[in-house]
């Protein structure tokens, strides 16, 4: 059986079919979850915000035309907006969030320590990132951490491709300067250090 494309599923969602949106959730929850973790350094919060992103995407599903029939860039754009207005988003969907399956003690039994390490490393990375203007942080996170192309990041943020390029260029230069000043490696590739000294 041929798998439905994102665009076909989106079309069915626009027509009011939640199950089609459920398939999109299955398909894209993982990259959205990891993107949100990289922006918050908190796996548990990232899980809740993943649900918020898909609820918000459903609310706005009629407003969007998917670029190259791919839903992920737009979902990451929604995620970026959700992060920007995190409290408001959580407030809006608080009742739904309360009904979502919650974290249980045994969920992370296998990789609890690894996840704690992730959070510690990510907090350090975000501290370094916080020295950049928010607009540049968004571009670094989308292109560098979520592996979107310039064109996809432009679609996610609703800005021209040239603006993505220039923001990324400025961000890299700034991070190189900051990395050098604080003793971090400045090889031009690493957007943020893995961990501050």
């Amino acid at each position, binding site marked *: 059986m041929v798998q439905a494309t994102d665009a076909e599923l989106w079309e069915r969602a626009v027509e009011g079919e939640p199950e089609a949106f459920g398939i999109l959730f299955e398909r894209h929850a993982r990259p959205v979850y990891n993107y949100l973790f990289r922006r918050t350094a908190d796996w548990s919060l990232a*899980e809740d915000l993943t649900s918020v992103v898909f609820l918000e995407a459903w609310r706005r599903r009629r407003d969007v035309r998917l670029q190259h029939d791919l839903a992920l860039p737009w979902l990451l754009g929604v995620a970026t907006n959700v992060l920007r207005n995190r409290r408001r988003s959580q407030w809006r969907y608080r009742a739904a969030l309360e009904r979502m399956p919650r974290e249980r003690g045994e969920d992370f039994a296998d990789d609890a320590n690894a996840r704690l390490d992730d959070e510690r490393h990510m907090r350090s990375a975000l501290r370094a990132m916080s020295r950049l203007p928010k607009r540049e942080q968004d571009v670094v996170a989308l292109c560098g951490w979520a592996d979107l192309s310039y064109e996809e990041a432009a679609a996610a943020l609703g800005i021209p491709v040239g603006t993505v390029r220039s923001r990324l260029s400025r961000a890299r230069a700034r991070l190189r300067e900051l990395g050098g000043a604080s003793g971090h490696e400045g090889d031009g590739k690493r957007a943020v250090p893995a961990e501050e000294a």
Partner: protein
Amino acid sequence: MNEELNIPERDLPPGRLQSRKEQLVSELSTFDRKNRRRRRLALVVVPAVVAILAATGFTTYALTREPTHLESVGCYDRASLDANVAVVSADGRDPTVICNDIWQEGDLPGAPIPTKLAACVLETGAIGVFPSSDAATCEKLGLADLPASYAQEGKRFAALRDAIVAQLGEPASGSSRGGPQCVGEDEARAVVRRELDSHGYGDWAVKVAGGEFSAATPCADVSFDGAEKTVILVPVSPR
């Protein structure tokens, strides 16, 4: 391009992709209907109020509305619906007093502490508290003032909440859970039903959401949905 982080990508915890998906689909199946109902109310009620007031010769009016989400209060950091908001539990006190505490504790950084606050009823039926410069803050936002009757209703709801929480423990808040209790489904249902009835909330329902009670998740975590007049029991693992 690869901006290295050296942090691996991970899956959602085992089983949760599926359970979150199922809950999402369940939420979405009623999402549009709820939104339509809200829009319909806004479209019908306001012209009706205008028509009635016009007919009786009033030149101004204030849209009044009872809050339906009594369980929490949103403290906004400026007089705008687009402002950042801190959501806190209602405890029976005046919402402006609750939010004043939030301001004083520094939970709304980035703006000077306001000298006056106004409590309004949002379109959703939730209570929002905004920095206020005059008596018309709610009206300027297109919202109703919080009615005086809330003082009594808020206390009544807080008494219900306190009675339930005393027996079932504090509701979950994110990943942190408080309280030592582990009350199973049957007992939790009985406790909640009894307290609802004795506090005058006999028309409220009790339901289980977010999974099923099992050996791994035998304890009831409680949450309140004022808009739906429902107390929700969420199965969780022992604390």
